[in-house]
Protein backbone atom coordinates (compact mmCIF):
# COMPACT_ATOMS: atom_id res chain seq x y z
CA UNK A 1 0.00 0.00 0.00
CA UNK A 2 1.33 3.46 -0.87
CA UNK A 3 1.96 5.71 2.12
CA UNK A 4 0.26 9.09 2.04
CA UNK A 5 2.83 11.54 3.29
CA UNK A 6 1.62 14.73 4.89
CA UNK A 7 2.57 17.89 3.02
CA UNK A 8 5.40 19.62 4.89
CA UNK A 9 4.63 22.87 6.65
CA UNK A 10 1.87 24.45 8.67
CA UNK A 11 -1.26 26.30 7.69
CA UNK A 12 -1.46 27.92 4.28
CA UNK A 13 -3.61 30.81 3.19
CA UNK A 14 -4.14 33.15 0.29
CA UNK A 15 -2.71 36.65 0.62
CA UNK A 16 -4.80 39.37 2.28
CA UNK A 17 -5.55 42.49 0.26
CA UNK A 18 -6.99 45.35 2.30
CA UNK A 19 -9.27 47.75 0.45
CA UNK A 20 -10.24 51.06 2.07
CA UNK A 21 -12.96 53.50 1.02
CA UNK A 22 -12.37 57.03 2.32
CA UNK A 23 -15.58 58.92 1.75
CA UNK A 24 -16.20 62.65 2.10
CA UNK A 25 -19.44 63.18 4.06
CA UNK A 26 -19.16 66.96 4.47
CA UNK A 27 -22.21 69.21 4.15
CA UNK A 28 -21.45 70.02 0.50
CA UNK A 29 -22.04 66.34 -0.33
CA UNK A 30 -25.63 66.67 0.93
CA UNK A 31 -28.37 65.60 -1.46
CA UNK A 32 -27.68 64.07 -4.82
CA UNK A 33 -23.92 63.68 -4.40
CA UNK A 34 -24.06 61.53 -1.27
CA UNK A 35 -27.04 59.61 -2.65
CA UNK A 36 -25.14 58.87 -5.84
CA UNK A 37 -22.01 57.90 -3.93
CA UNK A 38 -24.03 55.44 -1.83
CA UNK A 39 -25.63 54.11 -4.99
CA UNK A 40 -22.30 53.85 -6.84
CA UNK A 41 -20.55 51.90 -4.08
CA UNK A 42 -23.52 49.59 -3.55
CA UNK A 43 -23.74 49.08 -7.30
CA UNK A 44 -20.06 48.10 -7.41
CA UNK A 45 -20.27 45.41 -4.71
CA UNK A 46 -21.27 42.55 -6.98
CA UNK A 47 -18.65 43.31 -9.69
CA UNK A 48 -16.07 43.70 -6.92
CA UNK A 49 -17.02 40.31 -5.48
CA UNK A 50 -16.84 38.76 -8.95
CA UNK A 51 -13.32 40.12 -9.51
CA UNK A 52 -12.24 38.84 -6.10
CA UNK A 53 -13.73 35.42 -6.81
CA UNK A 54 -11.70 35.20 -10.02
CA UNK A 55 -8.50 35.34 -7.96
CA UNK A 56 -8.71 32.82 -5.12
CA UNK A 57 -5.08 33.59 -4.19
CA UNK A 58 -6.09 36.98 -2.78
CA UNK A 59 -8.43 37.49 0.17
CA UNK A 60 -9.97 40.92 -0.30
CA UNK A 61 -10.94 42.63 2.97
CA UNK A 62 -12.95 45.85 2.87
CA UNK A 63 -13.11 48.74 5.31
CA UNK A 64 -14.52 52.27 5.03
CA UNK A 65 -13.80 55.61 6.66
CA UNK A 66 -16.18 58.57 6.56
CA UNK A 67 -14.95 62.07 7.16
CA UNK A 68 -16.71 65.38 7.74
CA UNK A 69 -16.25 67.10 11.11
CA UNK A 70 -13.74 64.52 12.29
CA UNK A 71 -13.21 61.07 10.80
CA UNK A 72 -14.78 57.79 11.82
CA UNK A 73 -14.86 54.21 10.73
CA UNK A 74 -17.94 53.45 8.65
CA UNK A 75 -16.84 49.81 8.37
CA UNK A 76 -14.30 49.30 11.13
CA UNK A 77 -13.84 45.56 10.88
CA UNK A 78 -11.87 44.27 7.90
CA UNK A 79 -14.73 42.52 6.14
CA UNK A 80 -14.27 39.71 3.59
CA UNK A 81 -15.53 41.07 0.27
CA UNK A 82 -18.05 38.20 0.07
CA UNK A 83 -19.76 39.67 3.15
CA UNK A 84 -19.30 43.33 2.21
CA UNK A 85 -22.50 45.40 2.54
CA UNK A 86 -22.91 49.15 2.30
CA UNK A 87 -24.97 51.20 4.76
CA UNK A 88 -25.88 54.63 3.46
CA UNK A 89 -23.70 57.56 4.41
CA UNK A 90 -25.22 60.90 5.34
CA UNK A 91 -23.64 64.32 4.82
CA UNK A 92 -23.07 67.09 7.32
CA UNK A 93 -20.12 69.15 8.58
CA UNK A 94 -16.68 70.14 7.28
CA UNK A 95 -14.00 68.19 5.37
CA UNK A 96 -11.46 66.73 7.81
CA UNK A 97 -9.65 64.73 5.16
CA UNK A 98 -6.33 64.77 7.02
CA UNK A 99 -7.93 63.01 9.99
CA UNK A 100 -9.27 60.35 7.64
CA UNK A 101 -5.75 59.66 6.37
CA UNK A 102 -4.50 59.40 9.94
CA UNK A 103 -7.22 56.91 10.77
CA UNK A 104 -6.28 54.81 7.74
CA UNK A 105 -2.57 55.07 8.63
CA UNK A 106 -3.19 53.39 11.99
CA UNK A 107 -4.11 50.22 10.11
CA UNK A 108 -1.21 50.34 7.67
CA UNK A 109 1.49 49.39 10.12
CA UNK A 110 3.38 46.13 9.58
CA UNK A 111 2.21 45.05 13.03
CA UNK A 112 -1.38 45.21 11.69
CA UNK A 113 -0.61 44.10 8.17
CA UNK A 114 2.12 41.47 7.80
CA UNK A 115 4.65 41.45 4.99
CA UNK A 116 2.91 38.71 3.02
CA UNK A 117 -0.09 40.98 2.40
CA UNK A 118 -0.72 42.33 -1.07
CA UNK A 119 -0.44 46.10 -1.52
CA UNK A 120 -3.49 47.76 0.06
CA UNK A 121 -5.83 49.90 -2.02
CA UNK A 122 -7.09 53.28 -0.76
CA UNK A 123 -9.84 55.05 -2.69
CA UNK A 124 -10.43 58.65 -1.58
CA UNK A 125 -13.67 60.28 -2.75
CA UNK A 126 -14.22 64.00 -2.09
CA UNK A 127 -16.11 66.96 -3.48
CA UNK A 128 -14.15 69.74 -1.83
CA UNK A 129 -11.07 71.01 -0.09
CA UNK A 130 -9.69 69.77 3.22
CA UNK A 131 -10.58 71.92 6.20
CA UNK A 132 -7.99 70.37 8.49
CA UNK A 133 -4.24 69.75 8.13
CA UNK A 134 -4.25 67.51 5.09
CA UNK A 135 -0.44 67.45 4.83
CA UNK A 136 -0.09 66.22 8.38
CA UNK A 137 -2.51 63.37 7.64
CA UNK A 138 -0.72 62.52 4.41
CA UNK A 139 2.68 62.53 6.15
CA UNK A 140 1.36 60.15 8.79
CA UNK A 141 0.07 57.86 6.06
CA UNK A 142 3.28 57.97 4.06
CA UNK A 143 5.41 57.29 7.11
CA UNK A 144 3.87 53.82 7.29
CA UNK A 145 5.55 51.20 5.07
CA UNK A 146 2.22 49.99 3.74
CA UNK A 147 1.06 53.59 3.32
CA UNK A 148 3.95 54.28 0.95
CA UNK A 149 3.36 51.03 -0.92
CA UNK A 150 -0.42 51.37 -1.11
CA UNK A 151 -2.29 51.88 -4.35
CA UNK A 152 -4.01 55.25 -3.96
CA UNK A 153 -6.87 56.39 -6.16
CA UNK A 154 -8.53 59.83 -5.91
CA UNK A 155 -12.01 60.57 -7.20
CA UNK A 156 -13.23 64.18 -7.18
CA UNK A 157 -16.97 64.80 -7.22
CA UNK A 158 -18.07 67.92 -9.05
CA UNK A 159 -16.29 71.08 -10.15
CA UNK A 160 -15.27 72.15 -6.64
CA UNK A 161 -13.22 69.07 -5.85
CA UNK A 162 -9.60 69.91 -5.07
CA UNK A 163 -7.79 67.86 -7.69
CA UNK A 164 -4.42 69.14 -6.53
CA UNK A 165 -4.98 67.66 -3.10
CA UNK A 166 -6.16 64.38 -4.63
CA UNK A 167 -3.03 64.30 -6.81
CA UNK A 168 -0.88 64.75 -3.71
CA UNK A 169 -2.73 61.88 -2.09
CA UNK A 170 -2.13 59.67 -5.14
CA UNK A 171 1.55 60.62 -5.16
CA UNK A 172 2.14 59.14 -8.59
CA UNK A 173 2.29 61.38 -11.69
CA UNK A 174 1.23 58.46 -13.86
CA UNK A 175 -2.16 58.28 -12.14
CA UNK A 176 -4.36 61.38 -12.35
CA UNK A 177 -7.33 62.08 -10.10
CA UNK A 178 -10.65 61.26 -11.70
CA UNK A 179 -13.23 64.00 -11.81
CA UNK A 180 -16.83 62.82 -11.75
CA UNK A 181 -19.01 65.70 -12.84
CA UNK A 182 -22.19 63.69 -12.99
CA UNK A 183 -23.82 60.59 -11.54
CA UNK A 184 -22.92 58.42 -14.51
CA UNK A 185 -19.20 59.15 -14.21
CA UNK A 186 -19.24 58.59 -10.47
CA UNK A 187 -20.76 55.13 -10.93
CA UNK A 188 -18.22 54.38 -13.66
CA UNK A 189 -15.20 55.49 -11.63
CA UNK A 190 -16.29 53.77 -8.44
CA UNK A 191 -16.78 50.57 -10.40
CA UNK A 192 -13.37 50.98 -12.07
CA UNK A 193 -11.66 51.38 -8.68
CA UNK A 194 -13.59 48.40 -7.28
CA UNK A 195 -12.79 46.08 -10.15
CA UNK A 196 -9.93 47.07 -12.46
CA UNK A 197 -7.75 48.55 -9.72
CA UNK A 198 -8.59 45.70 -7.35
CA UNK A 199 -7.71 43.14 -10.01
CA UNK A 200 -4.34 44.81 -10.69
CA UNK A 201 -3.49 44.95 -6.99
CA UNK A 202 -4.55 41.37 -6.31
CA UNK A 203 -2.06 39.71 -8.66
CA UNK A 204 0.97 42.00 -8.82
CA UNK A 205 4.17 40.78 -10.43
CA UNK A 206 7.49 41.52 -8.74
CA UNK A 207 8.81 45.04 -9.24
CA UNK A 208 12.48 45.94 -9.05
CA UNK A 209 12.93 48.26 -6.08
CA UNK A 210 15.04 50.88 -7.83
CA UNK A 211 12.80 50.91 -10.89
CA UNK A 212 9.50 51.59 -9.13
CA UNK A 213 8.66 55.10 -10.28
CA UNK A 214 4.96 54.73 -10.86
CA UNK A 215 3.96 52.73 -7.78
CA UNK A 216 4.29 49.07 -6.88
CA UNK A 217 1.28 48.12 -8.97
CA UNK A 218 0.88 49.27 -12.58
CA UNK A 219 -2.67 50.64 -12.83
CA UNK A 220 -4.57 50.34 -16.12
CA UNK A 221 -6.09 53.43 -17.72
CA UNK A 222 -9.31 54.73 -16.18
CA UNK A 223 -12.40 55.03 -18.41
CA UNK A 224 -12.96 58.43 -20.10
CA UNK A 225 -15.49 60.91 -18.74
CA UNK A 226 -18.97 60.85 -20.24
CA UNK A 227 -20.04 63.34 -22.86
CA UNK A 228 -23.34 64.54 -21.44
CA UNK A 229 -25.52 67.66 -21.21
CA UNK A 230 -24.31 70.59 -19.15
CA UNK A 231 -27.61 70.44 -17.26
CA UNK A 232 -26.58 67.13 -15.70
CA UNK A 233 -23.27 68.45 -14.37
CA UNK A 234 -22.82 68.87 -10.61
Amino acid at each position, binding site marked *: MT*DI*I*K*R*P*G*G*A*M*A*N*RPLHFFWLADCSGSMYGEKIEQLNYAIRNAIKPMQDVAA*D*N*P*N*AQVMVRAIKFSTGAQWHIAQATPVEDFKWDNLTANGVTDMGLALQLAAEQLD*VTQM*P*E*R*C*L*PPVLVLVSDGQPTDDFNDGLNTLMNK*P*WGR*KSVRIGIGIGQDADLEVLQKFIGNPEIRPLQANNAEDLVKYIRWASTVVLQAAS*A*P*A*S*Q*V*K*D*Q*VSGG*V*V*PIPQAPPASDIDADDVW
Partner: protein
Amino acid sequence: MNWHIIGDTVRGASHKRSDKPNQDAWAFSQNDTCTVLAVADGHGSSKHTHSEIGAQLAVQVALTLLNDFAHADKGEDSRQIKQAADYLPSQIVQAWRAAVDNADNGATENPKDRYSLYGSTLIAALISTEYVLYLQIGDGDLLVLTDDGQLQHPLPKNIGLIANETFSLCEAKAIYHFELALQFFNHKPTPALIFLATDGYANSFTDQAEFHQAVEDFQQQIATHGADKIQHCLADWLDETSEQGSGDDVTVTMMFPSVAQEQPAE
Protein backbone atom coordinates in the same frame (compact mmCIF):
# COMPACT_ATOMS: atom_id res chain seq x y z
CA MET B 1 30.79 14.16 2.54
CA ASN B 2 28.25 13.36 -0.16
CA TRP B 3 25.30 15.68 -0.56
CA HIS B 4 21.92 14.64 -1.78
CA ILE B 5 19.71 17.15 -3.59
CA ILE B 6 15.99 17.24 -4.18
CA GLY B 7 13.97 20.04 -5.68
CA ASP B 8 11.23 21.04 -8.06
CA THR B 9 9.48 24.05 -9.51
CA VAL B 10 5.85 24.54 -10.47
CA ARG B 11 3.99 27.15 -12.47
CA GLY B 12 1.90 29.31 -10.17
CA ALA B 13 -1.86 28.97 -9.96
CA SER B 14 -2.29 32.62 -10.97
CA HIS B 15 0.16 32.14 -13.84
CA LYS B 16 -1.96 29.25 -15.09
CA ARG B 17 -5.07 31.46 -14.99
CA SER B 18 -3.34 34.30 -16.84
CA ASP B 19 -1.48 31.99 -19.23
CA LYS B 20 1.96 33.08 -18.08
CA PRO B 21 4.94 30.71 -18.03
CA ASN B 22 6.78 29.55 -14.92
CA GLN B 23 9.32 32.34 -14.39
CA ASP B 24 11.26 30.49 -11.68
CA ALA B 25 14.32 28.33 -12.32
CA TRP B 26 16.54 26.03 -10.31
CA ALA B 27 19.64 23.96 -11.02
CA PHE B 28 22.47 22.15 -9.27
CA SER B 29 25.87 20.70 -10.05
CA GLN B 30 28.00 18.20 -8.20
CA ASN B 31 31.54 16.94 -8.53
CA ASP B 32 34.36 15.71 -6.29
CA THR B 33 35.18 19.26 -5.14
CA CYS B 34 31.81 20.86 -4.46
CA THR B 35 28.04 20.88 -4.69
CA VAL B 36 26.27 24.00 -5.95
CA LEU B 37 22.56 24.70 -5.76
CA ALA B 38 20.73 27.75 -7.13
CA VAL B 39 17.21 29.13 -7.52
CA ALA B 40 16.01 32.25 -9.32
CA ASP B 41 12.73 34.08 -9.69
CA GLY B 42 12.10 36.11 -12.85
CA HIS B 43 10.13 39.25 -12.07
CA GLY B 44 7.27 38.72 -14.46
CA SER B 45 5.76 42.19 -14.76
CA SER B 46 5.31 43.91 -18.11
CA LYS B 47 8.81 45.43 -17.86
CA HIS B 48 10.38 41.97 -17.54
CA THR B 49 8.85 39.98 -20.37
CA HIS B 50 11.81 37.59 -20.78
CA SER B 51 12.37 37.05 -17.08
CA GLU B 52 11.84 33.29 -17.33
CA ILE B 53 14.96 33.24 -19.54
CA GLY B 54 16.74 35.63 -17.18
CA ALA B 55 16.06 33.26 -14.27
CA GLN B 56 17.44 30.28 -16.22
CA LEU B 57 20.55 32.28 -17.11
CA ALA B 58 20.96 33.33 -13.48
CA VAL B 59 21.06 29.79 -12.11
CA GLN B 60 23.41 28.62 -14.87
CA VAL B 61 25.77 31.54 -14.28
CA ALA B 62 25.74 30.79 -10.54
CA LEU B 63 26.60 27.13 -11.09
CA THR B 64 29.47 27.97 -13.42
CA LEU B 65 31.03 30.72 -11.32
CA LEU B 66 30.61 29.01 -7.96
CA ASN B 67 32.04 25.80 -9.37
CA ASP B 68 35.00 27.77 -10.76
CA PHE B 69 35.37 29.46 -7.39
CA ALA B 70 35.59 26.13 -5.58
CA HIS B 71 38.12 24.80 -8.05
CA ALA B 72 40.38 27.85 -8.06
CA ASP B 73 43.62 27.35 -6.16
CA LYS B 74 43.55 29.81 -3.27
CA GLY B 75 46.32 28.15 -1.29
CA GLU B 76 43.98 26.78 1.40
CA ASP B 77 44.07 30.18 3.10
CA SER B 78 40.69 31.20 4.50
CA ARG B 79 41.56 34.88 4.21
CA GLN B 80 42.29 34.50 0.51
CA ILE B 81 39.06 32.56 0.01
CA LYS B 82 37.13 35.35 1.73
CA GLN B 83 38.81 37.97 -0.44
CA ALA B 84 38.01 36.01 -3.58
CA ALA B 85 34.37 35.61 -2.46
CA ASP B 86 33.97 39.37 -2.28
CA TYR B 87 34.37 39.49 -6.06
CA LEU B 88 31.59 36.98 -6.70
CA PRO B 89 28.71 39.49 -6.84
CA SER B 90 30.37 41.56 -9.56
CA GLN B 91 31.47 38.44 -11.41
CA ILE B 92 27.95 37.04 -11.31
CA VAL B 93 26.37 40.30 -12.48
CA GLN B 94 28.89 40.63 -15.31
CA ALA B 95 28.44 37.03 -16.41
CA TRP B 96 24.66 37.28 -16.21
CA ARG B 97 24.68 40.44 -18.33
CA ALA B 98 26.92 38.75 -20.89
CA ALA B 99 24.54 35.80 -20.97
CA VAL B 100 21.58 38.17 -21.44
CA ASP B 101 23.41 40.01 -24.25
CA ASN B 102 23.91 36.68 -25.94
CA ALA B 103 20.31 35.54 -25.42
CA ASP B 104 18.88 38.86 -26.58
CA ASN B 105 21.03 38.72 -29.71
CA GLY B 106 20.80 42.42 -30.47
CA ALA B 107 16.99 42.61 -30.22
CA THR B 108 17.07 45.33 -27.54
CA GLU B 109 19.43 48.22 -28.22
CA ASN B 110 19.43 49.97 -24.83
CA PRO B 111 21.37 47.81 -22.32
CA LYS B 112 19.33 49.06 -19.36
CA ASP B 113 16.09 48.05 -21.07
CA ARG B 114 17.64 44.78 -22.19
CA TYR B 115 18.69 43.69 -18.70
CA SER B 116 15.36 44.82 -17.30
CA LEU B 117 13.50 42.54 -19.74
CA TYR B 118 15.37 39.55 -18.28
CA GLY B 119 15.27 40.70 -14.62
CA SER B 120 15.60 38.01 -11.98
CA THR B 121 16.56 37.30 -8.40
CA LEU B 122 19.18 34.70 -7.46
CA ILE B 123 19.89 32.57 -4.40
CA ALA B 124 22.77 30.09 -4.38
CA ALA B 125 24.69 27.84 -2.02
CA LEU B 126 28.09 26.25 -2.58
CA ILE B 127 29.40 23.57 -0.26
CA SER B 128 32.89 22.09 -0.33
CA THR B 129 34.87 20.03 2.15
CA GLU B 130 36.09 23.18 3.93
CA TYR B 131 33.35 25.74 3.74
CA VAL B 132 29.85 26.68 2.69
CA LEU B 133 29.11 29.87 0.80
CA TYR B 134 25.67 31.45 0.55
CA LEU B 135 24.64 34.36 -1.64
CA GLN B 136 21.42 36.10 -2.52
CA ILE B 137 20.09 39.07 -4.43
CA GLY B 138 16.39 39.85 -4.16
CA ASP B 139 13.52 38.08 -2.45
CA GLY B 140 13.19 34.40 -1.59
CA ASP B 141 14.46 32.34 1.32
CA LEU B 142 17.67 30.59 2.26
CA LEU B 143 17.46 28.64 5.51
CA VAL B 144 19.82 26.23 7.21
CA LEU B 145 18.98 23.49 9.68
CA THR B 146 21.79 22.51 12.01
CA ASP B 147 22.43 19.08 13.49
CA ASP B 148 20.94 20.18 16.79
CA GLY B 149 17.68 21.24 15.08
CA GLN B 150 18.23 24.99 14.98
CA LEU B 151 16.86 26.87 12.01
CA GLN B 152 19.17 29.65 10.89
CA HIS B 153 19.15 32.47 8.36
CA PRO B 154 22.78 32.75 7.28
CA LEU B 155 22.07 35.90 5.26
CA PRO B 156 20.58 39.13 6.63
CA LYS B 157 17.00 39.78 5.69
CA ASN B 158 16.33 42.54 3.16
CA ILE B 159 14.68 45.28 5.16
CA GLY B 160 11.86 47.24 3.59
CA LEU B 161 11.06 44.86 0.78
CA ILE B 162 7.28 44.59 0.91
CA ALA B 163 4.51 44.80 -1.65
CA ASN B 164 6.30 42.55 -4.16
CA GLU B 165 9.34 44.80 -4.41
CA THR B 166 12.64 43.06 -4.88
CA PHE B 167 16.28 43.66 -5.66
CA SER B 168 17.40 42.29 -8.98
CA LEU B 169 20.32 41.25 -11.14
CA CYS B 170 19.05 43.74 -13.72
CA GLU B 171 19.65 46.82 -11.55
CA ALA B 172 22.50 49.16 -12.36
CA LYS B 173 23.70 48.85 -8.74
CA ALA B 174 22.93 45.13 -8.44
CA ILE B 175 26.27 44.24 -6.84
CA TYR B 176 25.44 46.41 -3.81
CA HIS B 177 22.29 44.44 -3.16
CA PHE B 178 23.97 41.05 -2.85
CA GLU B 179 24.15 39.38 0.54
CA LEU B 180 26.98 36.90 0.98
CA ALA B 181 28.13 34.65 3.80
CA LEU B 182 31.11 32.31 3.94
CA GLN B 183 31.37 29.81 6.80
CA PHE B 184 34.36 27.56 7.39
CA PHE B 185 33.77 24.18 8.97
CA ASN B 186 36.65 24.59 11.39
CA HIS B 187 34.47 27.25 13.07
CA LYS B 188 30.96 26.05 12.33
CA PRO B 189 29.57 22.54 11.96
CA THR B 190 28.40 21.38 8.55
CA PRO B 191 24.70 22.04 7.96
CA ALA B 192 22.18 19.25 8.29
CA LEU B 193 20.00 20.73 5.56
CA ILE B 194 20.26 23.78 3.30
CA PHE B 195 16.91 24.98 2.00
CA LEU B 196 16.36 27.41 -0.89
CA ALA B 197 12.97 28.65 -2.09
CA THR B 198 11.48 31.41 -4.19
CA ASP B 199 9.13 33.82 -2.39
CA GLY B 200 6.00 32.11 -3.72
CA TYR B 201 6.61 29.39 -1.14
CA ALA B 202 6.92 31.41 2.08
CA ASN B 203 4.12 33.74 0.94
CA SER B 204 1.79 30.75 0.86
CA PHE B 205 1.96 30.16 4.60
CA THR B 206 -0.08 32.13 7.11
CA ASP B 207 3.08 33.26 8.90
CA GLN B 208 6.82 32.64 9.26
CA ALA B 209 6.37 29.95 11.90
CA GLU B 210 4.19 27.85 9.58
CA PHE B 211 6.78 28.26 6.82
CA HIS B 212 9.66 27.33 9.11
CA GLN B 213 7.71 24.26 10.11
CA ALA B 214 7.89 23.18 6.47
CA VAL B 215 11.69 23.17 6.49
CA GLU B 216 11.77 21.06 9.65
CA ASP B 217 9.09 18.73 8.25
CA PHE B 218 11.07 18.20 5.06
CA GLN B 219 14.08 17.06 7.05
CA GLN B 220 11.98 14.74 9.16
CA GLN B 221 10.16 13.25 6.19
CA ILE B 222 13.35 12.71 4.22
CA ALA B 223 14.71 10.79 7.21
CA THR B 224 11.52 8.78 7.54
CA HIS B 225 10.54 8.10 3.93
CA GLY B 226 13.75 8.60 1.97
CA ALA B 227 14.70 11.36 -0.44
CA ASP B 228 13.36 9.64 -3.55
CA LYS B 229 9.89 9.42 -2.08
CA ILE B 230 9.92 13.09 -1.08
CA GLN B 231 11.22 14.09 -4.51
CA HIS B 232 8.35 12.11 -6.02
CA CYS B 233 5.77 13.98 -3.91
CA LEU B 234 7.31 17.42 -4.24
CA ALA B 235 5.66 18.73 -7.43
CA ASP B 236 2.16 17.86 -6.16
CA TRP B 237 2.89 19.55 -2.84
CA LEU B 238 4.15 22.68 -4.57
CA ASP B 239 1.10 22.78 -6.84
CA GLU B 240 -1.13 22.52 -3.79
CA THR B 241 0.90 25.23 -2.08
CA SER B 242 0.50 27.67 -4.95
CA GLU B 243 -3.21 26.92 -5.35
CA GLN B 244 -4.05 27.31 -1.67
CA GLY B 245 -1.51 30.02 -1.01
CA SER B 246 0.19 32.78 -2.97
CA GLY B 247 -0.74 31.72 -6.51
CA ASP B 248 2.85 32.53 -7.49
CA ASP B 249 5.36 30.19 -9.14
CA VAL B 250 6.91 28.06 -6.43
CA THR B 251 10.39 26.56 -6.38
CA VAL B 252 11.85 24.59 -3.49
CA THR B 253 15.16 22.81 -3.39
CA MET B 254 17.37 21.51 -0.63
CA MET B 255 20.59 19.63 -0.02
CA PHE B 256 21.50 17.42 2.88
CA PRO B 257 24.18 14.85 3.70
CA SER B 258 23.40 11.55 2.02
CA VAL B 259 23.68 9.82 5.39
CA ALA B 260 20.65 11.83 6.58
CA GLN B 261 18.35 9.52 4.70
CA GLU B 262 17.37 6.31 6.31
CA GLN B 263 15.97 3.43 4.40
CA PRO B 264 12.20 3.82 4.40
CA ALA B 265 10.33 1.14 6.30
CA GLU B 266 8.58 -1.32 3.99
